[in-house]
């Protein structure tokens, strides 16, 4: 029982972490709360459905292409909508909200309201420590770990990653040092959308795909980010693990509604007592 809870918790936290990373990237660098982040996740999932189920591409190729397509969508939105709103928190939030509504409605129009299933590329389970691990979620987990590692290496060692971290810390000085903000914003948004799209594509076969599927991951992402600290990558990881485990425990022992209430109470507590979260820097 306990090991099953733990396994579930770990599996679910990995998805949360990927979503949270994208979310925190956009907020840390552009100070915009991207309410449409869940819709990018949804876009990735639908892209996979088309590429894998209908076009028949191999699974991992479909996942990658879905991610890239989502990144392209993200960068387009950034260029057209969000670049002019950098730093303006409230208008940025509301514009993101509008985008979220539009993307959802387009999905509704194209695919209808019903949830659809994507063919599963992997079936069956394997046992570990008395718990049962489904193969499809294992694939998601492996994918998530790969993505996380790639992301970490990129942020730590590439010039662009370094530039992004600099802009997050101090946009003005970074500008003086020759970092071009536009490039950074595009990269941040593109990277964040890539992460969301990959997460959506990976998760598409696990449950179902529907226009409203982005709402819950978005919610979880935001809780994780608050918990771990806005703008902090290790914070997102830590927050994701904590939330994943707590959700798993509460959902198994009590009720998923109670789990949700608990996560919001935690959010309240964290914002009031320690707004920078567990590992965040002071804003």
């Amino acid at each position, binding site marked *: 029982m306990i090991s099953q809870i733990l396994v579930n918790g770990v599996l679910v936290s990995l998805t949360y972490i990927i979503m949270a990373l994208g979310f925190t990237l956009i907020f840390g660098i552009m100070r915009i709360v991207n309410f449409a982040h869940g819709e990018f996740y949804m876009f990735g999932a639908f892209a996979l459905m088309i590429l894998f189920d209908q076009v028949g591409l191999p699974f991992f190729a479909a996942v990658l292409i879905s991610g890239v397509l989502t990144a392209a969508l993200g960068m387009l939105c950034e260029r057209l909508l969000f670049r002019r709103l950098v730093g303006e928190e409230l208008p940025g*939030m509301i514009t993101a*909200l509008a985008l979220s509504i539009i993307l*959802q409605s387009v999905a509704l129009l194209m695919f209808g309201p019903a949830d659809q299933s994507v063919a599963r590329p992997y079936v069956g389970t394997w046992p570990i420590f008395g718990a049962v691990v489904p193969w499809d979620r294992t694939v998601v987990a492996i994918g998530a770990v790969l993505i996380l590692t790639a992301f970490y290496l990129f942020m730590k060692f590439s010039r662009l990653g370094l530039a992004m971290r600099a802009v997050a810390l101090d946009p003005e000085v970074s500008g003086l040092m020759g970092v071009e903000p536009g490039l950074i914003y595009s990269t941040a948004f593109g990277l964040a959308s890539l992460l969301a799209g990959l997460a959506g594509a990976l998760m598409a076969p696990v449950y179902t795909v529907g226009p409203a599927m982005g709402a819950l991951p978005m919610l979880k992402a935001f809780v994780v980010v608050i918990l771990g600290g806005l703008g902090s990558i290790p914070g997102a990881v830590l927050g994701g693990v904590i939330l994943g485990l707590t959700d798993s425990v509460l959902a198994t022992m009590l009720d998923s509604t109670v789990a*949700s209430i608990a996560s919001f109470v935690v959010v309240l507590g964290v914002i009031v007592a320690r707004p920078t979260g567990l590992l965040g820097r002071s804003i």
Partner: protein
Amino acid sequence: MPRYIWWLVGAALIVAPLLSGNRYFLYIATMVTILIPMALSINLTLRLGQLSLAQPAFMGIGAYTSALLVMNLGVPSGFAILAGGLLATLAAVVVGPIFLRVKGVYFVLLTYSFAQIVNLNFQYWTTPFGGNNGLFGIPPISYPGGDLISKNTFYFLLGLILTAISLYIMRRFEKSDSGMICDALNEDEMLCLALGSNALSWRIAAFACSALMAGISGGVYAFFIGFISPDSFGFQLSVDLIVMNVVGGVSSTFGPVLGSVIIVPLLELLRDARQYQLLVYGLCLLFFMLFCRKGLVSLVWRGLRRNSFGNA
């Protein structure tokens, strides 16, 4: 001259549903009158530079409280509505001191979390609240003259009175010193603090007022529809209220009114074509955010001013 026209338009909007006798028309008009105070409620928080997503929660508290008081304790509807409003205000006064110290995005997230917690509780506790299925069979308000005025007309008139009172209070507030103080707090809080103003207390008072408006709207809504569920008091309502304020215009009291008059019927008309409804909605919001952030009111006022100069 132009000002005259607005009074006429307003009068026409009020009289038309009554004269038409069309139930659907009256229904939409009543919903407009119930949602105007809600839109004003969020507008009040926006005047202080903060976006509160907690208004649906306050509305829900008002709705469930008044419904339960009437259904379980037999309290007369009028008192029940007031009690609902007061309980919502109490909630605001309790969380206000904690939430209002925080500004910007974090305040939005705080109120959002609060609203989610309240809503989830409405979903979870089936015993008083009926859970996800909601509360059925809320008895309508019994009012004198039941033969002369039809039920629909009565609720429309009640809604109109509610709207009128809210508008009156908001206008008085706007023009008074308390409005000046709130504007000053929004413009330069440090200066106000240095002058000795207890900024937090003003924010709490404004927040509490907005909760009162929302709570009473909730009570009236409960009796009007006869059925409430957590769905009605969720994030979607906050989005609606934001759209009303953006489209109508935040800086004037008439902005949210204009926004409600336009958006509520629009939503109803498109209800059958839900996908299109959402799309139009989102595009509207986006359009206004990008090109007309001050809302329609700014266009209207500009037109008015031009006219007066022309006439002078």
